[in-house]
């Protein structure tokens, strides 16, 4: 595939935003986007895990393809992701305990974040090389963070508004997400 790094980054960030266009990472998106203070660190942590996962997946894929063991791909990807999350947890616990406590249960849940496994699977399917993979995962993580931050900002505002209580909760978040997704469709074709 001959996409340039810039195109891949812009696409993953905006036009094919992981959350709003590709439907990856929705559980944390709906769960953690209540407050801006937790949304942004969550986005950054997820981006970091995505970068690590992308790196490992690239290496793993080369290894598995060399030995014709493609059927072990999924299992090895998910095990590496689970290990990366453990690693990030330990690092955070040691160097930033406040952040560790703030993220709480959501940190181990990054393992089941479809966006992380999605990055690994998509970059394999599209046969990206090393640079393309790194840029793809960084753009995807940035897009995830962007969507989270946007959603959190709007939801924080909405707590002060007069929303009919029938719609409160997840229904409202989903409608919001739909409008955000609609607006992101305007980025189609950006970056070539």
């Amino acid at each position, binding site marked *: *595939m*001959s996409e340039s790094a810039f195109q891949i980054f812009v696409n993953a960030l905006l036009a094919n935003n992981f959350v709003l266009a590709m439907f990856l990472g929705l559980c944390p998106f709906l769960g953690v986007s209540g407050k801006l203070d937790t949304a942004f660190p969550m986005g950054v942590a997820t981006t970091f895990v995505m970068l690590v996962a992308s790196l490992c997946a690239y290496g793993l894929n080369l290894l598995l393809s060399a030995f014709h063991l493609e*059927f072990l791909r999924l299992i090895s990807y998910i095990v590496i992701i689970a290990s990366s999350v453990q690693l990030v947890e330990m690092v955070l616990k040691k160097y930033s305990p406040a952040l560790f406590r703030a993220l709480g249960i959501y940190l181990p849940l990054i393992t089941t974040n479809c966006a992380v496994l999605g990055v690994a699977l998509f970059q394999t399917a599209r046969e990206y090389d090393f640079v393309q993979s790194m840029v793809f995962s960084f753009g995807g993580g940035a897009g995830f963070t962007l969507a989270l931050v946007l959603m959190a900002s709007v939801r924080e505002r909405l707590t002060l508004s007069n929303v009919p209580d029938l719609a409160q909760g997840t229904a409202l978040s989903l409608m919001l997400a739909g409008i955000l997704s609609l607006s992101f469709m305007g980025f189609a*074709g950006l970056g070539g």
Partner: protein
Amino acid sequence: MSDQPSSDKKVIPIAVAAPDAAVPESPTGAMIRTLGLVSAICGLIIVGAYQGTYDAVAANKRIATERAVFKVIPAAKSIAEFVAQPGGGIAKVGAGDSAVPPGTVKFFAAYDESGKLAGIAAEGGAKGYADTVRIMFGYQPDCQCVVGIGVVSMRETPGIGDKIITDKDFLANFTALDLKLKDDLSTLAHEVKAVKHGSKTSAWQVDAISGATITSRAVGKAINDAAQALLPRLVPNLDKLKPS
């Protein structure tokens, strides 16, 4: 652990040890044993599933490929798979090989009922609106042009992007799309590109579907990239494609 008063008298502990502390750490042996057991069972299941479905999957893939090739080269009756190698030669792919060596480009030589070369079919892919658009195009060495396209896979918007399958004017682009090489056979003479709807002037341009520019551009780019990679290696070796 319950608090023991620090006196010499023998005291009976009042409270039992706290529940948390009573659960012993599992021995490493048990953990390793379980992980080993799980890996063995799961390994068996995966390998069993892979082997069990291998033939069916290969058959499905072959049928899909054949259907795509027959669509773009209607006169075809049989297909042979080849790869164009980085060094410049071409080689036939054996029946059992499935892996494509890096740097090679896969293509299909289609033969009609009398055994003559009816055309070449190759796949190309490019980023469309939603995801990769993969198309198969048919190439005629005599006119050095594309004679037809078929969509292998795409995830474009229904009703908009998927018009590339049905729009007759768009498909007419590909009845004689120019893929001539430069005189030194090193690269395409003209880049295959999609142009705005209604502004096509040359045989190597693709008239985009109005309102589906991005998908149309993807089709043009897919053909261009595939042809750029394949034709310089294929054209000098065309005679090698004659059936043996």
